[in-house]
C-alpha cells in the first residue's frame, strides 16, 4: 500500500468520512467529524500506520491533510506529490 493510501485510510478510519473527502485542503475543525476527539484518534491511526511517535508541536500543527503530509515527511515518510 502506498503512503498516500495509508494516510487516506487513517483519515477515513479516524474521522469516519468518505475517502473522497480526504483532500489536502481538508482542515481540522471545519467539518463536524474532525473535532478534538477525532484528532486524537487520527494521531493514533497515523502513528500506527507509519510506525512513528509524533511530538506535541506536530500534533498541534497537524491542522490539515496537507499539513499532515508535511509533518510526516519530517519523520522520513515519503509522499509522491
Amino acid at each position, binding site marked *: 500500500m502506498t503512503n498516500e493510501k495509508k494516510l487516506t485510510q487513517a483519515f477515513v478510519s479516524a474521522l469516519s468520512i468518505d475517502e473522497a473527502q480526504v483532500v489536502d485542503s481538508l482542515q481540522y475543525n471545519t467539518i463536524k467529524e474532525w473535532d478534538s476527539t477525532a484528532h*486524537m484518534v487520527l494521531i493514533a491511526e497515523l502513528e500506527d500506520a507509519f510506525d512513528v511517535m509524533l511530538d506535541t508541536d*506536530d500534533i*498541534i500543527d497537524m491542522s490539515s491533510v496537507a499539513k499532515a503530509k508535511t509533518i510526516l515527511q519530517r519523520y522520513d515518510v515519503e509522499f509522491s506529490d
Partner: protein
Amino acid sequence: MIVVEPYADSVKITGYQIELKPVGKEDLDLLLTWRNSVPIRQRMINDAVISREDHYAWYQRLQRDLSQRHWLVSYKGRPIGSTNVRTRKSGLAVTEAAQLEPGLYIGEERFQGNLIAFAPTLALYDYCFGELNIQSMVAVIKAENTAALKYNLQLGYQTIRQQDWVEMSLQSSCYQRHNENIKKLLSRPRRTASKGTE
C-alpha cells in the same frame, strides 16, 4: 501535569505547552485589542466595544476583587489569548468557592479552532479542581455560539439549562474521565531540532 507558582497576588500556571500568567498592566492594550475585535466581541455576554478608559478602570477594580482571576495565555512565549475564572456568588473569593465560572478567548486568529485552544482550559481546570478543590465548573454561553458549546461538550460538560443562554456544568470526575487522552497528547515532549523547525 501542571506547575503552579506564586505570582504577584495570584499564581502562574504552566502545563500542556502553555503558560498562564496573571494579567498585568503591561498586557492591557493587547487584551483590549483582542476583546474589541468582532469575532471575540460577538461571543461575549457584554458585546459592546470597551473604551480604553473603562478597560483600565476594570483593571484597577480587579486588583481589589478576590472573586475573579484573569490570566494571559502564552504559547511558545507568545501571548495568544486570555482566560479567567469568577465565583458565582458575590463577595466570595475564588479560593473559597465550590463552583467557578470560567471564561476563555483565543485572540490570535491562527490558534482559534486549533487543538492548542484546549491547553489553557486543561491547565486552568487542573488548578481549579486539583489545587482549589472546587466541585464543579459552570459555564454560561450564548446559544448561537456553537463553537463554544461544542468545545465544552468535548471537555465533558453537560447542559443543565437552555434558553437564549446555555448553562453547562462540569463535575471534577467527569472532567478527569473525559480529558485523559488529550492531556497525554499535549504533555508529550516538544519537537527536537533533528525533525526540523517552523
